[in-house]
């Protein structure tokens, strides 16, 4: 840039005349003056015309450019008018030359500046491209990390929901057990007083007369006591049986997380689940069981219990008015088929395809995580089976589970 000169730096005589054919200019000026001529710099260096100086007495006229004398025109010609015309002509050429030089150099400067700006932008772009390449390289890794995080969060949520439903179950079970325990306790209290009365009677038998005994028997109302004692014991035994059964059902449930496979008859599982859920169903739905003959199945029994309970509770929640839940089991084509049909409000077609999606829920916030059906499907698929759903709004919904009898998976 510097050696080429800036647009506003001073220009020399040779620069200014460089674009002009020297021979033609000299010929034109010679014709104008009628005499030979030479143009010399202020230092006396010849630039145009004769190399040697003219004899003494020749004319020497200053040629100006940019407010300064830049050259001298030397010629034997003496005509002042012609000399003026020649100088004017030369000055116009110099001005035109300067104009071209300045424009050209300005153009170069501007192009150079634009190019530098472009290169700077290019460098910035390359930098950002490199950043994006790096980002892309790590993207896969980061996505996997995110998936892991989401997975963990999903599990935690489901665990939390399960804890909540276990809590609900526990409340139901406590209520269920409380009732028989209550009357068993009360019966035992009554039995104690009966035993006291019988003890008194035993003392009398040893010392009193038959008449006195008869009267005491009547006073103590021992006929009733004998009758009631038997009934009371019978009732208590039934109550204790009920508690035993509930506890047995709960036990079936308590091993949900045991990853051990068991050989079970799924009909037993379904009965047990129905018992566990009974309290939550009693006001909403009537349970109709139609359990066909099923072969034994090696499976994660606890997990399947969870699936049945999920579907059963969903069915109960779908009831806007008390209705029916119909559970059917059957064996067909080496597959166990379990149908759980309700007469609830049904699922609109628009959302039917989404109900198995994780976190999709129609319940209010806090009422469900939207994971129940997702996990149910995962469990069924893990057993090599599949789950299907059919629903009509206002009529009801049917979930059908197919489980292969000899899962290959």
């Amino acid at each position: 840039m510097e050696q080429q000169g800036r647009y506003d730096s001073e220009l020399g005589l040779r620069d200014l005349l460089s674009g002009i054919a020297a021979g033609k200019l000299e010929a034109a000026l010679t014709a104008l003056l009628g005499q030979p001529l030479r143009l010399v710099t202020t230092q006396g260096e010849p630039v145009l015309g004769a190399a040697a100086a003219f004899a003494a007495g020749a004319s020497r006229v200053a040629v100006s450019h940019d407010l300064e004398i830049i050259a001298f025109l030397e010629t034997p010609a003496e005509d002042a008018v012609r000399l003026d015309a020649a100088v004017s002509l030369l000055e116009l050429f110099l001005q035109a030359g300067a104009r071209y030089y300045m424009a050209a150099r300005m153009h170069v400067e501007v192009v150079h500046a634009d190019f530098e700006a472009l290169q700077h932008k290019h460098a910035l772009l390359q930098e950002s491209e490199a950043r994006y390449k790096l980002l892309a390289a790590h993207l896969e890794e980061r996505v996997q990390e995110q998936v892991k995080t989401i997975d963990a969060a999903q599990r935690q949520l489901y665990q939390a929901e399960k804890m909540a439903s276990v809590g609900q179950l526990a409340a139901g079970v406590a209520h269920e057990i409380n009732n028989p325990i209550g009357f068993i306790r009360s019966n035992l209290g009554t039995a104690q007083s009966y035993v006291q009365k019988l003890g008194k009677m035993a003392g009398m038998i040893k010392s009193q007369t038959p008449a006195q005994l008869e009267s005491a028997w009547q006073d103590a109302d021992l006929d009733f006591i004998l009758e009631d004692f038997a009934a009371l014991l019978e009732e208590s035994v039934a109550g204790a049986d009920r508690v035993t059964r509930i506890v047995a059902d709960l036990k079936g449930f308590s091993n949900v997380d045991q990853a051990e496979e068991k050989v079970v008859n799924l009909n037993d599982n379904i009965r047990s689940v129905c018992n566990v859920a009974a309290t939550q169903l009693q006001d909403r739905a009537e349970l109709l069981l139609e359990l066909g003959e099923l072969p034994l199945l090696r499976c994660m029994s606890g997990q399947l219990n969870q699936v049945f309970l999920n579907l059963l509770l969903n069915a109960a929640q779908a009831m806007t008015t008390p209705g029916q839940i119909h559970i059917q089991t059957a064996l067909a084509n080496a597959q166990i088929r379990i149908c759980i049909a309700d007469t609830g409000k049904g699922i609109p077609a628009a959302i039917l395809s989404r109900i198995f999606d994780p976190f999709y829920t129609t319940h209010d916030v806090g009422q469900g995580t939207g994971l129940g059906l997702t996990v149910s499907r995962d469990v069924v698929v893990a057993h090599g089976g599949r789950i299907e759903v059919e629903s009509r709004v206002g009529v009801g919904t049917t979930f059908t589970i197919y489980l292969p009898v000899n899962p290959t998976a």
Partner: protein
Amino acid sequence: MAEFDETNRKITIKLVYYGPAMSGKTTNLMRLHDILAPDLKGEIMTLETQNDRTLFFDLLPLGFHTPSGWLVKLKLYTVPGQVVHDATRKAVLSRADGVVFVADSQHSQGINNSEAFQNLEENAGRVGLDFDTLPLVVQFNKRDLPNILTEDEIRERWSAAPWPLVFASALVGEGVKESFVKLLEAVYPVLDKYCALGVTHGMDMPAFVNAVVGD
């Protein structure tokens, strides 16, 4: 900074007319060419124009000799005002010794004025000029038109600015010389410090101004 050529006993000063497109920078130069009468006055060189719009720059050379026998040359440039010619504007502004900012007084030009002024400040920084010490005069041109801001409005808006404010109508020649003189007065102290104009060359400020304007 002014070029100080000891060998040829010459000082070259570069002054730039800056401002938004169509504010009257070239007109200022043309009027100065008519009005001023220094020892030496060149023709206006107009470089590359298209539909009366400056593409590169205009140039008016002025000059005089000091009592000490030195030649002082002043080169007055205009920049192209259109936004797209920023690289050219930057090249013209480089090495400037002083600037006249020509603003357009019309109501509609407020945004253009402020954008151009901001551009001046930015470009001054880019070409290595210290904007805080750069001699600068602000001229509000086109006072002859209707729909212009009043002088009071302009004074109020620029009240916090340290630069001389001149109202002009370059088309009829008003305020053009005043703006230029104000710039010479702002440039003189810097030149005097740098080239010892007063002590060495016998030019005090009034003498310097008179020599340039030719009064």
